[in-house]
């Protein structure tokens, strides 16, 4: 059974490899985005040395690593799941001897592996050449960052699954999918680090899972979070990973009893 899941990772990885040209332009797009925000932040800092606990050098690194982390953890599982529910092919998945959600996770992981090796990796290297990004020198930071990045992927995938599964209840959830994408980008801290948010919003964010996707790992990477605090933020990621399993399992149970296929 495990080997079947491993094969799913392999197949998706190879599938992505066939379309790798798409991702070369992806690297350029992300570099452009990072560039735009680099110049913006430079102008925002102006004469000021420190804003919301970030120096300009840290902010440059934060922007670069956050966008490149997004290059890795981003996937369209939500849309894939919603489409399979809408066109009814999910019915076939139900009768197959595997867990549909695990299959999706594995496919997402195959895609993530591809994105890590051919998108995030080279992208980060290019960005480091163009912009003054300061990579951490402590191998321990790299180690914990890689682990946290994995959990970024898992938590983002969980949110994608949850939103995708809503197609069981609302027929057409295209708008919801788009809304989710915007909300995740904003609240995860890719656009602005959460410590810049006004007080009430920053407090709200502490109680939501989005910060675990980008803000927490990137803060560790830039060295803004260090020492024992690192374990604390990693703990937050772990907690969210386990907490999010509950609604997914619940929605999945509910969903199976109300599947109806539109059109067929």
């Amino acid at each position, binding site marked *: 059974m495990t080997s079947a899941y491993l094969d799913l990772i392999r197949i998706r990885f190879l599938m992505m490899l066939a379309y790798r040209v798409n991702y070369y332009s992806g690297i350029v*797009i992300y570099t*452009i985005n990072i560039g735009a925000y680099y110049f913006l932040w430079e102008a925002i800092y102006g004469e000021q040395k420190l804003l919301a606990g970030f120096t300009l050098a840290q902010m440059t690194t934060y922007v670069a690593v956050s966008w490149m982390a997004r290059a890795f953890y981003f996937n369209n599982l939500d849309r894939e799941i919603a489409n399979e529910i809408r066109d009814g092919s999910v019915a076939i998945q139900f009768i197959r001897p595997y867990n549909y959600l695990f299959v999706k996770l594995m496919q997402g992981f195959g895609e993530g592996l591809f994105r890590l090796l051919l998108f995030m990796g080279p992208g980060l290297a290019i960005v480091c050449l163009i912009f003054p990004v300061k990579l951490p020198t402590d191998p321990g930071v790299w180690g914990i960052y890689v682990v946290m990045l994995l959990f970024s992927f898992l938590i983002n995938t969980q949110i994608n699954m949850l939103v995708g599964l809503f197609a069981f209840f609302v*027929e*057409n959830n295209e*708008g919801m999918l788009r*809304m989710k994408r915007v909300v995740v980008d*904003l609240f995860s801290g890719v656009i*602005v680090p959460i410590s*810049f948010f006004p007080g009430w919003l920053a407090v709200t964010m502490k109680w939501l899972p989005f910060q675990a996707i980008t803000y927490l790992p990137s803060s560790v990477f830039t060295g803004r979070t260090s020492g024992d605090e690192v374990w604390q933020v990693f703990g937050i990621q772990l907690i969210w990973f386990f907490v999010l399993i509950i609604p997914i399992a619940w929605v999945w149970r509910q969903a199976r009893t109300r599947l109806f296929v539109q059109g067929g």
Partner: protein
Amino acid sequence: MFYWSLAMEYIKNYAKTKLTYRADFWVELLSDLLFQGINLIFILIVFQHTPSLGGWSEAEVIFVYGYFMVPAGLFGAFFNIWNFSERYIVKGEMDRVLTRPAYNLYQVLLENLDPPSLFGSLVGLIIMVISWGDLGLAFNLMDVLMMAVFTVGSVLIYAGLFTSLTAISFYSDAPTGILPLMYNISNYGRYPVNIYNKIIRFLLTWLLPFAFVGVIPASYFLDKDHEGLSSLALLTPVVGAVVLAIGLTIWNHGVKRYRGAGS
């Protein structure tokens, strides 16, 4: 007249399909606005930490952003052919379009209308009016006229650029990813261009004139002249006409090369 009635029929059709999924329509509208608004939220958050951005005050930057939303919304409503290559070239739907007696690009655009995008324009106008008051700018009727002229110019720039880029699919059927690339570059234009380095600034003003879809025409209305930008503003409709002419030429040339799909 014929083209007008055609547009009306397509809009009626659009309304009918949308009314089937009513709840979703509203969510889509909201998510569209949020998508546009994310940069505005960025500006608002950032100005809590700094008084000025490259010499521009918060109200000025928001004003520029409001202006940007007006042409962007119009453009989004009438030009929604991001999947042109896939739908019309790869699947061969262009065959159907070309056999009909109306200009092909016009038909393609009408088949893909996205009126909810107009809400963005409305929000942009509201933002402009509010920051107009904040900035204490004088108002006269001439401004309304200039606003209309600039908006048309900006929409033409967008339309021209993206028409020429979409037309690339006539020459190469491989996905190039150049459209999202351009879309991302267009984001540069909504902020004051003087914060970028010289190369990007030149690029945004003369080669990919996205600065004419945001900061340049908007600065015409502002009192303070930032590095001579407002004198460039009057060029907006000219640049628009030139870019559109280039776009249509590339498109018309491309359509002649269209061969249809196998099946």
